[in-house]
Structure formats: structure tokens, C-alpha cells
């Protein structure tokens, strides 16, 4: 995973709440077995509408998504994160995320930034007034900036550290293999195995 420090880019104002992962990428787009190429499925149903915000030319090249509350609820499909990344997004800003989506984002290196709903409203306004305005997502300082607006965001220390360092979770855990082996030695015998002997 690439390290995430400071990202500066233009933003897409998505004035919708409860954007579940079926909206981010419908199930019919989940059949690919590769890790890339999911941008076609991003918001697929909504993109049929020429007026949908992502289809408007002033938002070409956006890299920051600003969305309403409860973004990424529903299915655990990490493809939702990949579709956003494949399209070019580096960060998503919302007042609340589905837990699994946020965890997936942290795993894949897409920064999920939680701010107050009021901050989301102000960012929407700033971006709609001037689509060329840039948003700064600053992970070392844990804040977002846009024009005069500076807003702190919360992110758990562990995820923040991993993103800043670009660390692979599996490498971290495998370094602690001795703990896992010790645990396994003490598991009760009545726990089931998936093969019958």
C-alpha cells in the first residue's frame, strides 16, 4: 500500500445520504477476479443520468468525494473502495461511514475522513460555488482545508499510522506470529474443524 500524507485535489459534491455500497458499485460489476478495472461500475445506475454530478464536465478530474451521512453502508464489498480508487479518488469526506466500508478504505489506502455534518455542508457550498477550488486533506495534521475553512477530523491512531507509513497489515501481524502460535496451543479441543475425519 502507498503511504498517504497530504492530498490536494478538486472535489465532487455528492448531496446524498445513505449511499450504500450497492449504489457505489452494483453487484453485477463484482464478477471481475482482478484487483483493478472497477471504475466502470462506480455509481453505475446514477451515471445513466446525464445530469448526475459525476457526469458534469466541471467535475472532471476530481479526487476528493464529499458525501452525505452514512456513506458506504450495506454490503462488505471492498470493490466499492476499489471502484472509487480506480476512478481516481484518494479521499472521501462524510459525517458518518459504514463500519466495514471505513475498515476497507483503511486497508486499501483510500482515506475516509469523518467530519461534522456542518463541515460537509460548507464544503459542498464551497465546491459548488467554485468547482476548481482545491481541498487539502492533511493526514499528518488530521485536518481538511478549503479556502478559509479548516476542520479537524478523527481517525484512529492505528489506521493513521499504517496509512502514513504505507504499512501492510499482514506483514505487521506475521511479525507477531509467536502470539498466534501460543494462542493456538491453548485452543479447546471441542472447537470444530471444517473437514470431517
Amino acid at each position: 500500500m502507498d503511504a498517504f500524507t497530504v492530498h490536494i485535489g478538486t472535489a465532487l459534491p455528492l448531496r446524498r445520504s445513505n449511499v450504500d455500497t450497492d449504489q457505489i458499485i452494483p453487484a453485477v460489476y463484482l464478477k471481475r477476479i482482478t484487483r483493478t478495472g472497477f471504475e466502470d461500475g462506480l455509481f453505475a445506475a446514477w451515471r445513466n443520468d446525464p445530469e448526475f454530478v459525476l457526469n458534469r464536465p466541471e467535475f472532471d478530474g476530481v479526487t476528493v468525494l464529499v458525501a452525505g451521512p452514512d456513506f458506504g453502508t450495506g454490503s462488505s464489498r471492498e470493490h466499492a473502495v476499489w471502484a472509487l480508487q480506480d476512478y481516481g479518488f484518494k479521499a472521501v469526506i462524510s459525517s458518518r461511514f459504514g463500519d466495514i466500508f471505513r475498515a476497507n478504505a483503511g486497508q486499501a489506502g483510500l482515506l475516509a475522513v469523518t467530519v461534522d455534518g456542518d463541515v460537509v455542508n460548507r464544503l459542498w457550498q464551497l465546491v459548488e460555488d467554485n468547482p476548481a477550488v482545491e481541498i487539502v486533506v492533511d493526514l499528518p495534521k488530521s485536518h481538511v482545508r478549503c479556502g478559509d475553512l479548516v476542520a479537524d477530523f478523527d481517525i484512529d491512531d492505528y489506521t493513521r499510522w499504517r496509512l502514513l507509513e504505507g504499512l501492510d497489515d499482514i506483514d505487521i501481524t506475521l511479525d507477531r506470529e509467536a502470539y498466534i502460535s501460543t494462542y493456538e496451543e491453548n485452543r479447546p479441543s471441542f472447537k470444530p474443524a471444517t473437514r470431517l475425519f
Partner: protein
Amino acid sequence: MSSNLLRTMSEKVWDEHVARAVPGEPDLLYIDLHLVHEVTSPQAFEGLRAAGRTVRRPDLTLATEDHNVPTVDADGPIADPVSRAQVQALRDNCAEFGVPLYSLGDVEQGIVHVVGPQLGLTQPGMTVVCGDSHTSTHGAFGALAFGIGTSEVEHVLATQTLPQARPKTMAVTVEGALPDDVTAKDLVLALIAEVGTAAGQGYVVEYRGAAIEALSMEGRMTICNMSIEWGAKAGLVAPDETTFAYLRGRPHAPAGADWDAAVGHWRALATDVGAVFDREVRIDASTLSPFVTWGTNPGHGVPLSAYVPTAESFPEGPARQGAERALTYMGLSAGTPMREIAVDTVFVGSCTNGRMEDLRAAAAVIGGHRVSSAVRMLVVPGSTRVRLQAEAEGLDKVFTSAGAEWRGAGCSMCLGMNPDQLAPGERSASTSNRNFEGRQGEGGRTHLVSPVVAAATAITGRLSSPADLPPVATGA
């Protein structure tokens, strides 16, 4: 952590699985059972291969084919080449990494959350994960079970553990008794409508109280299944005699001395008297009635006897805007009685309501009636075992002679990943778990219902409960 203090059940299960705990870091949680399917695993296996890693515990890992598989002609090759390639990737990956797999055509194949419990693999006090948000289903047994993404699937394959931050605890206490024709599905839809789709975020929920204790394992699975629909990380029910009776004798359940040791352990998992939850919610089951959804998230629910709500009845802001969008998407006018809404399709199935009890309940309502000529009814068993048992009981004939389609096992129209989909503008009554826009097919409109409401709706062509049906002529 707090082992000498009073603890809730989920805290006990958590504490038993901590392989490494360091202040300021997530706990490293050991995973007892990792369930795998074709859609969220290929990139995880590819990651293992690229890094030269193996599956640490294939003996604690089980794969099945469910999400994209067809529910007709299961014996032939899958017609859709992209679906076929994804299923073939699972078969190749399981063979390469030594993971047991139940493929299409195997008697144990089915929806991953139906297969685990029916094999007796899901047991109290376990940690269970799967790359699927409805993994919460397994909490019905008193297991700590939650959905994960593909990166975490790879992590569990490689290490049999997951770094996890300790969640908060919530109790949902359901007192009283459910009235006739009111099911576990109605209860959980009413709960979500009451608390909202985000109320559970960050919590592991314990469902308790007389109404929960009175439920069968199937009913408990329906409730726990939909924990994710109100944002909860997991939902659990304390194991009791109902749980033990369900498990005893199943292929993977402990036997002999192990059974006694296990039951002793399982009994001790119950929340300590006096343990404190971070939040408590109370519901009176006796006040509930059949519940259905009108909108585009599972919190958009009302009693079947009620009306499509106005957007203005929602708080100003995102909730009201969401309701306005939902009314437009669903093609509904505020004030319309729910019972007047006509449907094109009825779907009985899914990990929420695709088990034997669900099929029996739907068949009992359908028996002696005809499916409306305006309705296509699909009955999709949750597993091949469920299909075979239902056929042994003659339920397939009950459905087909009423005019319904009887299918093979899989996720099917719950998520419209295989050919079982709604056409744009089509409306369904569905026993599944999500009424999201396009969930059952682009432009499709979904009303979430219980199996008995689904069956009654198939007969009348409009959202209905069994109480709305004319009596069946005797001798039918």
C-alpha cells in the same frame, strides 16, 4: 481486559479470542471459522500468491459457491462466462491452497450463512468471519460473527487473526410475546424503523428478553442477520436449550466428552447479571404487527396496516431528502395504503429467510391457493440441503402447484448478481434484507417482508398478510 469484572456475553467471547493485547493498538483477535465465497475472495487469494504466502489454517476455512451461481440448470456449466470464470477461480484457489469447498452440485452447497449453521460448524462462543456483511447471522448461536472486506479476508487466510478495535456493547431487550402471524422478520424491521439505520454503528448488539428466547434458531438467525442493516458490527443471542438442541448431532458439533465440555463452556457465556451495556433499547413484542418497507433503506419500514409516509414526516435535512428520493424511486405517493401496493414479483429466499422454517411458513400460507396471474413467484432454498428437505416434505409441490417457481440454492434475487433480477420499474415483495436502489436489478423496487407476508402477497398480488386471505376450501 476486565476479566475480574462483570462482563457481557460479547465481551467474554472477545476476551477469549485475544491473541495479543497492547494498549493503544487494536487487539489481535483469533478467528475460529472463516467462511469464503466466490465474489470477495479471488483478489485475496491472488494477494497470497503474489506474496508467496499460504493459508495458515485451511482446516478452519470453508468455501461455498453462492452469490453469482444460477438457480436453474445447476448441473450444466454456468452460462454467463464472467460468472463461470469467478466460480472457476474459487475452485482453482481452493484446490491450490487446500481449502475445503462445497461446489454447485454438492449436497452441502448453499448460501454460506445457511451452510455453516446446518453443518453444526457455527457454535456458541466462536469468532466467525466472512467476506460478506450478513455474517452477523451466525450470532444467533452466541458466536461473535461479522463481515469483512477482501483485504481482511486475505489477512485471515494468511494469519487466522484480525487486528480489531474493541467495540461498544448494546442490549436490545424484546419483552412480551409476538402476536400470531408476526415473525422475527417483522420484529427486526420494526426495530430498524424505530432506531434508524445508523444506530448500531460501533456496537456489538445482544438481543435478549422473552420474545427472543421464544424464537427458534431460524428466527434468531433472521434477527441477527439484519444487525448490519442498522449498522451494528455483530448481533448475538445467548445460547440456551434451543441452541443446544439445534446443534446436537450435527456433523461438526462436538460429540461425547467434547459435547459435555462444550455445553458447560457455552452456558458460562451468558451476560453476567449486573453487567452494564453501553446502550440499551427496549421493545414490547406484543405491540408489533406485520411490517413491510416502503422506501430504499431497511429503516424505511411501516406496519402493513399503515400508509406510505410523507417526506415531511422525516426530520429536515438528509433524512427528509432521502425520503423524497425514495418516494420518487419507488414510484409511490404518500398516503397510499401499503395494502394497495401491487407487486410483479415475490421472492422467498436469501440468508435472511431461506431456511426450512421460512419455506414451511410460506408453504402453509400458499397451500390451496393460486399465485396471482400478475405475479411471478420465485422460491429459492438457502442451501441444497434445505431444497432436498423441502422436497422430501412435498413443499416444492405446494409451491409449484400454486404457480410458483421452485429453484436451486443460492443468493439469487437477493442481490441480483445471477440472472434472477427485477427489470427496471418492476416491484417485488422480498424476504431478503436490502431494499436499496437497484439491489435486485437496476431500476427494480423492493419491499422487504416476512415469508408469510410474501406468500400472502403472491396470492393477492398486493402487499398482504395471511389474515387478508379468503379461507381455503376444505379438502384442499
